[in-house]
């Protein structure tokens, strides 16, 4: 991160090699086109550079921090573009993924994410997917499913806590 902050090209390349692909993939899934995903990727690394000083490893992993930036930018864009067709989400367990031998960490992250989602019930997985990958607000989900807003909030929180627990369990002791 020091290198990123100083604009060190090797540091930026290193960060891109680790996270360029997952960031671009998120852009594809949320925004639905390669052009939009490329713009998002550029915005994410620019934002990461601008905010590098705020990254605190004591509060979370670098991957989480960067992907949170990516997600927030993507959702913001999704909401700005009124009338946008929300793309259909494809999760890794539904699509054969090309092996990526030079991104071992990325593979581990994906495995962990799939494992965590596997700990959820179908209803919980569906709920998180609609919220996180399609940017549907709790209110939109409540109206769509004809259930109280408070129930949606409670279920979202419970599902995230399950994911957190699953992530903690896979961490080496």
């Amino acid at each position, binding site marked *: 991160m*020091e290198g990123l*902050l*100083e*604009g060190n090209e090797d540091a*930026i*390349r290193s960060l891109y*090699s680790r996270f*360029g*692909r997952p960031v*671009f*993939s*998120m852009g*594809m*899934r949320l925004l639905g086109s*390669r052009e939009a*995903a*490329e713009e998002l*990727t*550029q915005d994410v*690394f*620019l934002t990461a*550079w*601008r905010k*590098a*000083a*705020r990254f605190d490893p004591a*509060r*979370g*992993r670098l*991957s*989480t921090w960067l992907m*949170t930036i990516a*997600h*927030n930018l993507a*959702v913001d864009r999704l909401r700005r573009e009124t009338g946008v067709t929300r793309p259909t*989400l*494809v*999760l*890794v367990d*539904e699509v054969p993924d*090309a092996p990526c031998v030079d991104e071992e960490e990325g593979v581990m*992250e994906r495995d*962990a*994410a799939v494992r*965590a989602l596997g700990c959820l019930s179908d209803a919980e997985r569906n709920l*998180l997917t609609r*919220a*996180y*990958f399609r*940017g*549907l*607000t*709790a209110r939109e989900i409540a109206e769509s499913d004809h259930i109280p807003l408070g129930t949606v909030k409670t279920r*979202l*929180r419970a599902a*995230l*806590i399950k*994911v*957190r627990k699953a*992530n903690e369990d896979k961490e080496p002791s």
Partner: protein
Amino acid sequence: MSCTAVRDRLAERALGLLDASDRQSVDRHLVWCAACRRESDGLQGAAGSLAFAAASVEPDPALEEKVLATLRRELTAGRPGTPRRGRLAVAAVLAAMLALSGLGWGAVMAGRAARLEERVRQAGQRQIESIDKVQTIFEELEFADGLASAGPLSAVGGGIEGGAGMTVTSGSIRDVVIVLVSGLGAEGAPFRVELADHQGTVLDVGRIRKLDIDGGATLIQRFAEELEGFRRVVVRDAAGAIVLQGVLDSDAGLASPTPSPAPAPAPGQ
């Protein structure tokens, strides 16, 4: 916004679903509330890990060069850079100061109040107002090269008085002094706040003329002078007697404040 209201929104915040106004209110709370921040970090970590569940799509190899070109353009545009350590120190120190701004709870919970409920409300209001003021400065410093020094202020007589002081020195903005006090007796007002260097030069930071019902106040002052080296903060009462004093440390000395710890906030705060 209370802890209850914030926690009601943390899952939505982690999933990026809050509108800008709600998010700003929640983020403001998270700056000073360590318990909610821990909860938020956990949920944010869980949400962030979901990102990797999307099927991987290979970007165009040329994208890497586009990303680098974008950053090069920014670098050559001369956007002000900031030493990481300095910026992190500012963030850490401000968070610690905001936590200390809750020292008023000490007096509230000590049961000195005739009308406890009203004092709780006022102390909470004071805390929010202090946070708003410091938050404004914090946002300005995010883009400045500020280097912070901070430290707790201790009561000379061993009473319930307490506080915190901080200076931020910068080459691009006017230097800032922030002093938070709590538990002072109104009979000692007005209080004079001084900042001194090791050579004995004393700067008059300002007067605290009015205390809230909990004996607290926030003093924020900007200086045209360079404040580097001014580390000793003294608060004197109207008679000139020192009631609070402390030494500011450039290594974020507020991480472990020495005054007696404030009791946990009441539920809902």
